[in-house]
């Protein structure tokens, strides 16, 4: 059964690969002399394109009336925030304090998310219906893994945001900061996430709440 499925999957992949190669060959080089098959295919593609373009032309879906106004006011808020961020720190010590406070807030947000993640994963595990196919350890592990993967993506996005914030703060300051503790901490978080990838038994919450568990 499994062999059949694998074989079918392989055949499908092979077909797609051949299809792509063939299509690239007949359409790829403009210098090639077109043969009957390529002309036929080209015609078919053009007709399909034309058919779909006609449908799209009839697409009269309208956005909400206030769409551009909403976007512009959101962007204006973004510009205002930027201006505030640039205006806020004036002296070196103020900038340093400001940077510390912003970073602390960001880290607090990331930590809060980690707590939520752990609690949610735990609660979802408890809620899993232990019946039928989903009762197997593999299914449960797969479920948890998929969920973690999702959260991990989210975590990385947030980390990227954190990085961006730090970078933009850095840009807004004239003098460089001598210490680098925030970046060290971010690096530490990255190490934890790498371990999530490489060590199946590694639990995110352990890393976040037990000091000295990094790397």
């Amino acid at each position, binding site marked *: 059964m499994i062999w059949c499925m694998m074989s079918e999957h392989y055949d499908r992949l092979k077909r*797609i690969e051949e*299809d*792509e*190669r063939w*299509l*690239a*060959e007949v*359409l*790829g080089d403009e210098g090639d002399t077109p043969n009957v098959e390529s002309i036929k295919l080209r*015609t*078919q*593609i053009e*007709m*399909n*394109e034309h*058919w*779909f*373009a006609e*449908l*799209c032309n*009839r*697409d*009269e*879906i*309208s*956005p*909400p009336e206030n*769409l*551009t106004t*909403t*976007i*512009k006011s*959101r*962007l*204006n808020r*973004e*510009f205002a925030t*930027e201006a505030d961020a640039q205006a806020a720190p004036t002296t070196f010590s103020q900038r340093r304090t400001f940077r510390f406070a912003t970073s602390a807030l960001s880290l607090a947000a990331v930590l809060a998310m980690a707590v939520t993640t752990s609690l949610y994963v735990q609660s*979802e595990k408890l809620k899993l219906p232990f019946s039928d196919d989903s009762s197997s350890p593999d299914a449960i592990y797969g479920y948890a893994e*998929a*969920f973690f*993967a*999702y959260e991990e*993506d*989210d975590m990385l*996005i947030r980390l990227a945001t954190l990085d*961006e914030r730090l970078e933009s703060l850095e840009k807004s300051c004239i003098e460089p900061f001598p210490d680098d503790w925030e970046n060290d901490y971010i690096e530490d978080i990255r190490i934890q996430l790498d371990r999530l990838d490489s060590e199946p038994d590694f639990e995110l919450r352990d890393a976040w709440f037990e000091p000295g568990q990094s790397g």
Partner: protein
Amino acid sequence: MSVFTKLDSLIERAQRRDSTAVGEIVDVYAVRLYRFLYRLTGQRQDAEDLVQEVFLRVVRTIEAYKHDGKFEAWLFRIAMNLARDRIRKLARVPGILSLDAKPDSNDWIELPTPVARMPERESAVSDLDNDDMNRLQAALMTLPQPEREIIILRHYSNLTFAEIAEAFEVPLGTALARSHRGLAKLRKAMGVDQP
């Protein structure tokens, strides 16, 4: 001033943090982006949120953008990536099924959530009374994501296949093949004979 020169100027001003220029870029692209995102996600609310998010990303990153005449490709690539993220997250939330239904499935009209959240079920959508467009949207949602993305990108962004291939980082032949396969499936799903 030609359209392109005007766009060049808008981009340059936007890079200097000119909010008026950004507003004009919004005027030029918001509706097209909305339609593109709507067809990609099948959700009005998602499309609305995502258009906002696209322009936020533009504002945050336009200083780093090197204008080489491919602003539109850059813009739609941001939109596509954000839509992908949204779709991926939806698919991973427990209780919500994948947006990618089986491509050969014949039951595309009756697909469960999130297709159940699709436009034909939204009562206030007067402009989607057109049966063909409803069926098209439903059929689009049954395509594998790469095929759906290429078809929609091709027809809603006005990018060439070469630009699309570049955006997807795939060979030109792959982009063409995906579009060809996807359109053939769409015709079949819509009950239109193959040419």
